[in-house]
C-alpha cells in the first residue's frame, strides 16, 4: 500500500515537472513528500488555512502529505498564495493532468476550468488536454471560444422557462454565442 503510493507519487511528480514547464513555457516545479504530522502541536498553523480548505481530519495525522513548489519563468520561487488567479489555475491544471495521465480514468468532466485564463494560457491548456484525450474522454463546460475550437463535438444547453434543453451544435454556431 505504502509502496504503491510512493511509486504513484514519483510517476505523478515526473509528469508534473514536465506539464508545468510546458504550460508556463519554462520555469520549474516539483512535488515533495512532507514528514507525517504529529497531533495538536502542529495545529498552530491552521489559522493560515485558506478559506475553502477542508478542516483537519483525524486521518491527516501520521501520514505524509504532498507539498507543491513552483518557480514561474523569470520570477523567484514563491509561496502558492502569492500567485495570480490564472497562475494558480495553470499549476492546478499541471497537477490534474499529471494525475490523469498516471492512471487514466475513463472520463473526466471539467466545469469552467478556463475561467481565469488569458488567451495564450487557454491555448496551452487545451493543447495538453487534446493529447490526454487520446486516453481519457473529456467533457468541458466552457464559455470560451478558444476552448470550443478544440472540441470534437459540441452540445448546447438552453433554458426555456425553467426547463433545460440540449442540442448538438456546430463550432460556428457555438462560437457565435460564446464570449
Amino acid at each position, binding site marked *: 500500500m505504502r509502496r504503491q503510493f510512493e511509486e504513484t507519487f514519483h510517476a505523478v511528480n515526473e509528469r508534473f515537472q514536465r506539464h508545468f514547464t510546458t504550460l508556463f513555457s519554462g520555469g520549474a516545479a516539483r512535488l515533495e513528500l512532507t514528514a507525517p504530522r504529529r497531533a495538536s502541536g502542529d495545529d498552530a498553523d491552521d489559522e493560515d488555512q485558506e478559506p475553502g480548505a477542508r478542516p483537519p481530519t483525524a486521518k491527516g495525522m501520521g501520514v505524509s502529505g504532498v507539498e507543491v513548489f513552483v518557480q514561474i519563468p523569470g520570477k523567484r520561487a514563491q509561496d502558492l498564495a502569492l500567485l495570480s488567479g490564472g497562475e494558480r489555475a495553470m499549476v492546478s491544471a499541471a497537477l490534474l493532468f499529471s494525475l490523469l495521465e498516471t492512471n487514466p480514468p475513463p*472520463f473526466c468532466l471539467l466545469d469552467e476550468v478556463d475561467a481565469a485564463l488569458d488567451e495564450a494560457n487557454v491555448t496551452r491548456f487545451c493543447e495538453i488536454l487534446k493529447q490526454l484525450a487520446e486516453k481519457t474522454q473529456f467533457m468541458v463546460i466552457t464559455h470560451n471560444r478558444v476552448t470550443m475550437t478544440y472540441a470534437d*463535438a459540441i*452540445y448546447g444547453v438552453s433554458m426555456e422557462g425553467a426547463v433545460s434543453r440540449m442540442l448538438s451544435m456546430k463550432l460556428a454556431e457555438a462560437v457565435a454565442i460564446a464570449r
Partner: protein
Amino acid sequence: MHLKRLELHGFKSFAARTVLEFSPGVTAIVGPNGSGKSNIADGIRWVLGEQSMRQLRGKKSDDVIFAGGQARSTMQMAEVGLVLDNSAAWLPSEFAEVAVARRSFRNGESEYLISGQRVRLRDVTLLLAQARVGHDSYTVIGQGLIDQALSLRAEERRGLFEDAA
C-alpha cells in the same frame, strides 16, 4: 472504456427526459448562464453515488428533483442514468455496455440500478471503483474549484494520489 450516454429526467432543471450521446475525445458543453450546464456535472456526480447535498449545491435530498417553474409543475422523481462502454471487458459483465442509474423520490426513497436491476449503493460504488470512476476523485472538477487542490492541506492533497494509485 468511455461514457457512451447520459440520461437525465426530472433531475434539477432537466424536467424533460434528455439524452446526451458522448464519443471519445473532447466534448464541449456550452450555453448561457443558468441554462443547466453545471446541472449536468451535478447529475453525473449524483448517479456516481454522491451523498453530500452540499457538493450538489443543495440542502435536502429532494433539492435535486425538478421543483417546477412558472409554466411547469413540480415533479415527484429525479432519475439519472449513465451507460459505460464495456467492449474491452474492463467490468465484470458479459455485456458490451453497463448501465448505472439512480432515482430519488419526494417521499425520501431512493433506488440504485445496474443494467436495470435494483441493487444497493455499495454495489454501484464497487462497480464504479473497478471502472476507476468516482464521484469524489477527479472525475468531475466542479465550477470554481480548479485550484482547490492548491488550497488543500498537504495531507489532504495526498488523498488525490491515493485515488490515482
